């Protein structure tokens, strides 16, 4: 019994160790199609998150609904069904093609107090934006069964993991003069993490058999805040510089609940582990620098984004209760305080984008960027030692069209992504069941639709529509009043 408990403690004891791709979110239509390059000359919803000084470029009081996209993605994990290849089953790889509709970013832009002395437009601009700023989904479900003579063996693997970070950003931007703008964003992030995984390996013959299984189910959420300040400045008619600094996020509150069940060479023993406590997911501090070039028909921007290292990118801090049963149903329990931590890796991402105007109100855009993971490479992990299930580095490319008008603008485009990295998959076939790091590849294609509507034009249109009706009504009321006088 003690040996079983000791083994479970070893399996489930927390140690230190990896979801942190910061550039993949479809934050704004134009920015997305320019490869994410928006620090210097950005003028859409993404600026509220990337460089709030850029919101002063957003025309008028407007509503933006970027980005609604159809997202086609495929993930392939080598040997996911038989991680350690102990079972030698056929077709051990797992892959999944998904099609989703992702509403991503909504923004309301408002002009501030009256105009300044150099423009009809207000110096002050405010925005309220909501966006999904990070998203990762890993899911597959596979069964294998091989039989030969009287022997049989098999495995079942099921994994469903989803991480979503949603952000609300309150921004303020001010034009200091014609050349320079400053801005700030106060941001509240909500991170939600669901991880459900079940795996069983079995083997036997007609008279005897045994199985080992590992199942994990956990749910976590975290609320955090951070502040971003940014500046853009036109140093000449052609060149614009931009810079934005984001503080590491400050944790407000969170929750972590996890259940793990291990069955060892059944019927030898079972173990149940319950974790309840706090969860935090911290944004790293970051510095974004942008250099933009604008000619009458062409805009080019190059960006560099630097994210600092973190001792705690994510941390679950909890009370753990461990209950073990042996073949005689003898039990043992242990409890204590424990934590699991993910470190944050310092990263640098580069992006470049261009917009070429074919006519004054029609342009083509294109861009490319890197999106390296802020998590360290996945390595084999005991179930109680692991937070995030995958990490991957990505390259993104995009191309699209924009139509501009007085009433707003509309963008259509495609964004493609290819990424590679490691994914952790449960392997119950080992003497000490654990999550094994396997190579994965991932590609996706997103159809990006983005729009911006000038609210003044909406009010004008409403006035035009309602005006004659109102006149008619007041006319008819007047007639009603006059009739009695007659």
């Amino acid at each position, binding site marked *: 019994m003690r040996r079983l408990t000791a083994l479970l403690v070893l399996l489930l004891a927390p140690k230190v160790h990896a979801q942190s791709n910061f550039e993949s979110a479809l934050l704004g239509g*134009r920015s997305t199609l320019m490869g994410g390059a928006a620090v210097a*000359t950005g*003028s859409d919803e993404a600026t509220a998150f990337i460089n709030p000084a850029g919101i*002063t*470029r*957003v*025309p008028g009081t407007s509503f933006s609904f970027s980005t609604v996209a159809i997202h086609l993605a495929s993930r392939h994990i080598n040997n996911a069904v038989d991680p350690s290849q102990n079972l030698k089953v056929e077709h051990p790889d797992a892959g999944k093609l998904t099609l989703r509709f992702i509403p991503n970013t909504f923004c309301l832009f408002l002009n501030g*107090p*009256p*105009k*300044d*002395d*150099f*423009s*009809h*437009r207000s*110096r*002050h601009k405010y925005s309220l934006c909501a966006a999904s700023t990070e998203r990762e989904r890993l899911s597959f479900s596979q069964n294998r069964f091989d039989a030969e003579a009287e022997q049989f063996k098999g495995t079942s693997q099921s994994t469903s993991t989803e991480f979503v970070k949603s952000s609300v950003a309150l921004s*303020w931007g*001010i*034009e*200091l003069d*014609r*050349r320079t703008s400053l801005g700030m964003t*106060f941001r509240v992030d909500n991170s939600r993490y669901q991880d459900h995984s079940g795996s069983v390996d079995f083997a036997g013959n007609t008279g005897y058999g045994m199985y080992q299984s590992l199942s994990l189910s956990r749910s976590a959420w975290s609320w955090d*805040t*951070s*502040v*971003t*300040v940014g500046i853009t400045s*036109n140093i000449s*008619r052609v060149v*614009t510089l931009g810079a934005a*600094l984001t*503080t*590491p996020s*400050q*944790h*407000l*509150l*969170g929750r972590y609940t996890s259940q793990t069940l291990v069955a060892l060479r059944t019927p030898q023993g079972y173990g149940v582990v319950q974790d309840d406590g*706090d969860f*935090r997911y911290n944004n790293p501090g970051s510095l974004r620098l942008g250099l933009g070039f*604008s*000619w*009458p*028909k062409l*805009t080019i921007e190059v960006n560099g984004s630097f994210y600092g290292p973190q001792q705690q990118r994510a*941390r679950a*801090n909890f009370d753990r209760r461990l209950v073990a049963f042996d073949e005689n149903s003898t039990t043992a329990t242990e409890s204590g*305080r424990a934590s699991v931590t993910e470190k944050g890796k310092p990263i640098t991402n580069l992006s470049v984008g261009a917009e070429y105007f074919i006519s*004054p*109100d029609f342009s083509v855009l294109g861009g490319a960027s890197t999106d390296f993971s802020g998590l360290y490479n996945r390595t084999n992990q005991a179930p109680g030692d692991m937070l995030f299930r995958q990490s991957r580095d990505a390259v993104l490319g995009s191309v699209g069209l924009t139509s*501009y*008008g*007085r009433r707003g*603008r509309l963008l259509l485009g495609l964004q493609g992504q290819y990424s590679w990295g490691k994914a952790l998959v449960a392997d119950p076939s080992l003497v000490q069941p654990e999550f094994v790091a396997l190579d994965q590849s991932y590609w996706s294609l997103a159809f990006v639709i983005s729009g911006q509507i000038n609210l*003044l*034009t909406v009010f*004008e249109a409403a006035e035009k529509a309602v005006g004659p009706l109102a006149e008619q009504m007041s006319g008819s009321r007047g007639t009603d009043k006059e009739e009695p006088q007659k």
Partner: protein
Amino acid sequence: MTRRARLRNAALCLGLLGAPEVQGDPAPKSPQTPTTKQELRAAQSYRGCPEVCAQNEACVHHRCVDVCRPDCREGTYCTPSGTCEQLAYSQEPVVTEAEQQSKSGESSKDSRTLLFIDVGGALGYGIRTGLEFGQAHAALIRFQIMNTGVLSHAEYVENEHERFEWGFGFSAGYRKYMSTWGNLRGFYVGGGLDYSVSMIGSRGDADIYQVRHSAAPYGEFGYRWVFGSFALAFGPTLALRYPIFVGSFGSDEDLCEKQFDCRGASRRFEGTVNLEVGWFQ
């Protein structure tokens, strides 16, 4: 210009800009104002502007600005050719931000002292009260009660060993105001030093406490609006906080290692938002 054309232009102007904002007499154009037909056409192009500028606007440094500069006087509007024409109908005058601020702050624009409360601190490390003294260059001192801030408590929520008991802080700083229509108003930039003391208790049974001293050089910018003697300021503050001194005391200091994370507070980068409500003295 025919009456019909004039009305059409007026409608164009109004359609884009809402109410035309007019004031002041027509004056000679600034050097950046396009004058010739070719210059005007070039200015109206999409020279890096995020939208196509209207006919009475020019794209200058990625922003659409009026071609009439300074703006047309009250009762007139800016035509596509950059001239000011009489409006077909009267409009309520719209004052500039500077004029509005000057008028609204008339009684206080020469005041040199402002007493304020930073209520934004409730979402940060505590509400602050402060006194600011000066004109375009100003000095300020602030006092903070950390118990009134969400982040002061949140910092220790998930820590099994520690609990925030109480804390206070004070800071001294400098601000430079850019406006020319009164003291202590408009856009500002500044910086200073913040010093805070907090006491952290143990969640365990032992009667042990730690007093942590930290200092943080900070930088800030923001904007202050003035309405008579009342002022409202808004802006971010970024600070880099360094631990200065950590002292433990209690019934059994030897237990510190077991009950506390005795490394004390580590250096951290903080971002908070100021929302200052103030009164001129």
